[in-house]
């Protein structure tokens, strides 16, 4: 049973922390700008007279780059999420409260998901708006009718979820923010490989294929949620070792414990 108050508290806290974390703010601002400038410039540079082959290539490239935003922005944020707690020494006090690991993870994931999705769709929306307003009509038409466009819109939340769970998993295992962020960005790349094949139409992005891939990503995201929850063990996080329950390695030698007589009223 998930306690909405506790999960909500984590979401509010995480969002407040993200807002005041310069590294997160800069990353979440710069990355979309970088991934917006290049495809926009690429599309605006071509004209109605451009050959259809070149136009198709530019459209593929331009639609692919904004997809890096829902991968890299949440990867950066989620990498910080647990490591940040470790670095500040807040993890142990947090784990001594009644919050369950599922509530904590869910709160952290949602707090990353919401801004990451907002930034990603905003980036995509701004890009499409610029194309609609400023690109030559045939270029804009080619963009709007690109077969991978609806699939990519669908993939944004799924890619973000993947990046979040990978980032959280890595964040539970490492102790340094920068290491966590680098590994998280690497970990978020595998689904990108398949998406790039689709974006560049090496694989024809039919509706069936896109739906199958989206379904697979959804299943993987759900499985990753449970996997990360298993990694998020209190003992492992606090001591860095796995819990083990068995007979102690050694028993106290007779005579090594000197106990005084029991004190009245205490037992």
């Amino acid at each position, binding site marked *: 049973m998930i306690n909405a108050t506790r999960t909500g508290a984590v979401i509010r806290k995480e969002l407040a922390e993200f807002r005041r974390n310069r590294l997160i703010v800069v990353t979440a601002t710069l990355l979309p700008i970088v991934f917006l400038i290049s495809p926009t410039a690429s599309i605006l540079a071509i004209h109605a007279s451009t050959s259809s082959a070149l136009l198709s290539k530019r459209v593929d490239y331009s639609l692919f780059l904004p997809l890096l935003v829902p991968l890299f922005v949440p990867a950066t944020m989620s990498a910080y999420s647990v490591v940040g707690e470790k670095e500040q020494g807040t993890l142990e006090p947090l784990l*001594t409260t009644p919050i369950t690991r599922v509530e904590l993870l869910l709160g952290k994931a949602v707090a990353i998901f919401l801004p990451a999705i907002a930034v990603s769709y905003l980036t995509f929306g701004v890009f499409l708006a610029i194309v609609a307003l400023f690109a030559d009509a045939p270029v804009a038409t080619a963009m709007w009718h690109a077969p991978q466009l609806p699939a990519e819109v669908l993939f944004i939340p799924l890619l973000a979820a993947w990046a979040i769970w990978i980032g959280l998993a890595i964040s539970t295992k490492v102790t340094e923010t920068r290491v966590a962020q680098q590994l998280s960005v690497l970990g978020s790349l595998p689904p990108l490989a398949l998406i790039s094949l689709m974006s560049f139409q090496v694989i024809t992005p039919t509706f069936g294929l896109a739906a199958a891939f989206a379904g697979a990503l959804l299943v993987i995201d759900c499985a990753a949620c449970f996997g990360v929850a298993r990694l998020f063990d209190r003992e492992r996080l606090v001591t860095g070792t796995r*819990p*083990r329950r068995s007979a102690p390695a050694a028993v*106290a030698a007779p005579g090594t414990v000197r106990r005084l*007589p029991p004190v009245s009223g205490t037992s």
Partner: protein
Amino acid sequence: MSTQAAIEVSHLAKVFGTRTAVRDVSFTVARGEVFGFLGPNGAGKTTTVRILGTLIAPTSGSASVAGIPVGSAADEEIRQRISITTEAPGLYNRLTVAENLEFFARLYGLPAQNARVYDALSAVGLTNRADDLCGSLSKGLKQRASLARSLLNEPEVMFLDEPTSGLDPAAAHEVLGLVSGLRERGVTIFLTTHRLDEAERLCDRVAIMNTSLRTIGTPDQLRRTLFTRSIAVATAAPLEHPGKVFDGLAAVEGWQPDGPTGYLLTVTDPAAAAPGVTRALVAAGADVLSIGETRHSLEDVYLELIEDREGRS
């Protein structure tokens, strides 16, 4: 299990890989008691607190906190009824003091969060710093904010793990004053420390730990058990025949010189021995500068036990 016990620990052990952190530890802490848990670095104090705080599982043995068995499905209930203040304040530096406390208040599902936060801040004298970012506070103020956080859920049992570590004397004094205040509220306090002076000042009983439990009792009990009772006598000039003065006196078992003009008398009961000793000294024509029972500090007890153990191992 006793209904009066706030904490009961029975044959608790914790092994990390090949290293035994806690071995066969048993003790009981009564409700409302201030219990000192002493030991050198690496003695297993923090591990024991983490087990009792349901952060880590024991390898063997059992424990209950606030009447609830540790390691059961009710661990969440234990965490609702206790608080743990760690050596590091553990505050979110990018949030204000009030935001930190409000966050934890929500985690405890507390109603009237603002009132509870204000009460906790008042208790530690931090209401005027409520809107300051925690990252801007001194270590002493952070520790006070951390204590305020620990008060939010009005815990039945408070675990204070080295609460004055790294604090200057004035800040440590303030924190100890706050702990004294908690005792008056009837909160059971489990104080982990290696500052023996504060344990002696605050604790009803202390346990000395070095992987296994070395001893447990009130500071006075420990002193009496480990050390013979004695009276220290200082005179203006050395006695000519101290044996004639001290031998055969009631309650005096023996004596030895203690400096050029001092004598240390082993006694069965200082109160019974002192009048006879004083009379004998006066009768011998000695100018008595001082006479009194020698008191061993908790530090003496601690060193005796720890060094004894290290000497054996």
